[in-house]
């Protein structure tokens, strides 16, 4: 059985890589390369997988919410992903890299009995990225 919780956080970022010239960055990332950055209301889905326990649950909701809040939302919500998140220093703050970061942040402190099975993050209602683990 899989159980999915949805969470939200808002953050700003700018897509830019030092590996490319300013001109090439502008061409590659378009509006996302705007020097002053821009922001999104990210929608995060965390899926856990495991048997239904004797309490009738895959996972305790409050324990799961607390873990996501502590390890992800508290660190990312209302932050500038380029400036405020040391783990992202040196990498481009794409939603792909953000998904990998979130997976690492959760997996590194995972205390729930069910397995972390999926991280899905939507940057806008029109694009989303999914990491099956």
């Amino acid at each position, binding site marked *: *059985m899989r*159980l999915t919780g949805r969470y939200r956080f808002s953050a700003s970022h700018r897509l830019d890589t030092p590996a490319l010239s300013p001109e090439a960055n502008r061409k590659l990332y378009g509006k996302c390369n705007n020097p002053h950055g821009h922001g999104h209301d990210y929608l995060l889905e965390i899926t856990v997988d495991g048997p239904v326990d004797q309490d*009738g649950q895959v996972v305790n909701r409050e324990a799961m919410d607390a873990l996501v809040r502590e390890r992800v939302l508290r660190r990312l919500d209302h932050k500038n992903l380029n400036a405020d998140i040391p783990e992202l220093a040196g990498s481009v703050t794409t939603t792909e890299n953000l998904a990998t970061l979130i997976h690492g942040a959760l997996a590194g402190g995972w205390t729930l009995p069910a397995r972390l099975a999926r991280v899905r993050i939507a940057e806008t209602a029109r694009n989303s990225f999914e990491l099956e683990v």
Partner: protein
Amino acid sequence: MFLTRKAEFSASHVCANPAWSADRNQAVYGNNANPHGHGHNYVLEVTLTGDPDPVTGMVFDLRELKEILNREVVDPMDHRFLNREVPPFDRVIPTTENLAVEIWKRIEPQIRREGVHLHNVRLYETADLYVDYGGEQ
């Protein structure tokens, strides 16, 4: 090919183990353990898998699928207090997980036929919490 049909029902429930203290129920089920119950607008998505019939072009007759969902799930559960009115939830705690298992048990035998079977039951308790159940592994 996968085919998914959606249905909605609204029901109240209490998630609490009668053998436990109020404090222990609160610790395990949070405010879902409130003894007088509370409600949700459940959204059910059932996904079937099979090949389209060469004559009808359909994996499954959608009208029949709607009738199965109404008969087995919506009619008995909509606007009901699950613990009091919908067996087995008088003895099985109606968590979203247990509801998904019960829905699977009710509809799976009626869907299974040559070349078609039930693939997944997704049940949303709220827009921000859902479970997926694919039967006994």
